[in-house]
């Protein structure tokens, strides 16, 4: 299958990042970067990785099912991740999460019918001192209030 030149460049770089005979090391990055571009880990992506780094499909399955960021089903174009872990919880992260569920009508890890938005309750994302924190795809949002969250979600809807 063909990837964007940017992804190909990333893959190329990965293939040169490890000692000889250690191509398997590229597995986790390839899966995540591939997913970033394709929206999910597709069977074609797996085939491609299998061929490039010489792992078995079973090994890929073992690995991709272990990591919580890796998905075989597409997420929404905007994946809204709300942290409810301890520091965020103390500052209302759980309420934000309830709000996101209510606003979008979605449940954890569900995708909206139009494929635009998906939501996930996540563990600590490393923004505890600026809690509660939300990540939309890879973008951090700190000290998020309900109002800000509404604005954020409105913005996502506009982006569609």
């Amino acid at each position, binding site marked *: 299958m063909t990837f964007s030149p940017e992804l190909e460049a990333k893959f190329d770089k990965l293939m040169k990042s490890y000692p000889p005979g250690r191509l398997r090391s590229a597995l986790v990055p390839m899966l995540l970067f591939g997913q970033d571009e394709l929206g999910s880990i597709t069977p074609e992506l797996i085939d491609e990785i299998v061929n490039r780094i010489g792992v*078995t*499909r*079973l*090994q890929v*399955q*073992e690995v991709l*099912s*272990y990591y919580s960021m890796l998905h075989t089903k597409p997420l929404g174009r905007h994946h809204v991740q709300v942290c409810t872990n301890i520091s965020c919880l103390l500052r209302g992260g759980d309420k934000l999460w309830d709000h996101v569920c209510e606003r979008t009508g979605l449940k954890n890890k569900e995708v909206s019918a139009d494929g635009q938005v998906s939501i996930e309750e996540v563990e600590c994302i490393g923004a505890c001192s600026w809690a509660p924190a939300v990540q939309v795809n890879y973008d951090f949002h700190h000290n998020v209030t309900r109002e800000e969250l509404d604005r954020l979600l409105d913005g996502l809807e506009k982006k569609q």
Partner: protein
Amino acid sequence: MSDLVHLTIDGKPIEAPAGTLLIDAVRKYGIEIPAFCYYEGLALQAACRMCLVEVEKMPKLQTACTLPVAEGMVVRTETPVVADARKAMLELVLTNHPLDCPVCDKGGECELQDMTFRYGAGEGRFNETKQHIDEKQWSPVVFFDRPRCILCYRCVRICNEGMGVAALGIANRAVTSEIIPNEADHLNCDECGMCIDVCPVGALTSGPYRYKTRPWEMDHIATICAHCADGCKTTLGVRNNSIIRANNRDHSGLNGDFLCVKGRFAFDYGASQERLQTPLARVDGKLEPISWTRALKTIAAKFGEVRQRGGAFGVIGSNHTTNEENYYLQKFARQGLGTNNIDHHRTGDVITLIDALAGKGGQLATVEDIYNAPAVVVLGCDLSHQHPMLAYQLRANVRHHQAQIYPITPGPVREDNQATRSLRVDKGGEVEALGSLAAELKQAGGVVILYGDPVKGDAVRKLVDFGESLGVPVKYVALVDYSNSRGAIEMGLTPELLPGMTPSNTGGMRIGQMLASTDLDVLWVVGANPLKNRAALAGKPFLVVQDLFRTETAEQADIVLPAGSAYEKNGTVTNVCGQVQMLKKGIGAMGTKTDLDIFALLAKEMKLDLGPATPDALLAEIRTTVKGYDVVLAVLATGGAAMTGVNGPVAIDVPVDAIHSANDTMYTSGSISRYSKALTSLMEYPGELYSGKSK
């Protein structure tokens, strides 16, 4: 590693070689440390935490399965803290495990059940809902029940490390972790059932066996597998005169825990609907049932008459019958019928090897040697298909001793995955190719060479010359196909050789000549199917066939006698390496007689005096009269394997053109496999040699 260290365990002083794991070291002293994930010979996991023990000077409990013994170590395995830890682990693992032993297939031989009984707490304190997941069928023989799985990873390791198949993996994480098969919802694998065998609980169960019986309702009979030449020990689980399962229950014998798909599942051929249950005789061109008495009388009369008038006999023996049967059959032929026209299907060149090694001694490798040799070369054989147990031992050798291995084959083989170097050569070019490895093999300091049927005659001599030129200890195995191919040669089922590889110095027809001859008056075929891929006989001899089934050869017979299978008789067989082991009768089959009984009845009918014809008496005779077979009876009787000492020179011309392997895969077994439901159920892909794959 042979330095002994001294330690104290539960107050007792013990010693063990440095580097030994604590869990192994104490076993010798009768101390059992409970374990789920530890499995001898496989990678360490430290996952189940059952083996925690107290070690002085270490603040935390230690896992005995990963802790090497050390000088002065003080260990306690039965303190309240240890007992508490064991109880805790059991309570934890049972939180997601069904508590329904009475309906579980594993009930009665479950390690979790046993341990809970010994170390567990009475009452469970888990009041939450358990995860429910439906049971899955992964293959005709493998079923998986996730809730029963305790994630000891034995199955994953045995498949990966032991089998070299790697069909099982681990998916997800935390409490959702589970074992998964390689094809999403099913297995594409050897179907060996090793995973089922090692599973300590009822998570992996065997299609053919599950829910058929309870372990305590079976008799357990230790015998030898009836299929390939490797000679795996197996325990038949017998109930109501039928075999319900086969596994090597006590892990004794040459194979340890191993059985391949044939050994584990293909014990069922004897129970086939197509099994002969009565003698048949040709009446008006068709085979019709007759009584044993009439059949035997007819044959005896015919044999007597032909013998009387100096007519010609041909006798074709079997690669599956016992040493005692083979020995008696050649005696019958030579002394009773006065013929040297006796042969069997030859599948490998053992004879040239014995001759080429004349006077050297100790250069025939045993199965243990294959596990221990620093280097192993495999010439012209797809070992994982054709010799699954030798291949298993070889893989263990690589894992445990970092052996160097070198497959020299016409196509890819599983051994390539662990090979130091693989060479691809056309059949016949193996020995020549071997030359390029001389330096590496010398360096290794010891070699075992296994060769298949492409290496025969002069090639074997060249091979031995090469081996001798290395200047390091070299041992050999001439690979042959079936459960007693070695015994057929060594008990004198060839015209050239009497028992003990003593040249007969008498002419005699070989199989090909017998089948092509127009002069034979009688052709007597015992447990062989020479007409499988062949047109009818050239001549019109009186054809007597002893077999379990109406094979292609039986279909041509004048009289067919229903014979007993290897699971239905006592006796001994000699494996591919020349190691003798004892068969034990597991069941009887209606209407059949063992080949030996048939021979004896015929001899009696013909009033021949060929000596006693019981397995025991014949074994005694073989041990005293057959060169190389003076094996220790106690070894055999206790289920051991005794190496034979057959030695050259064997000054005959070996008919190399007569040597052909049947090239069975791991799913076929000569003519037998098509009568095994277990094998035919897997037969969608019977497998292909030199494809590097199972199927």
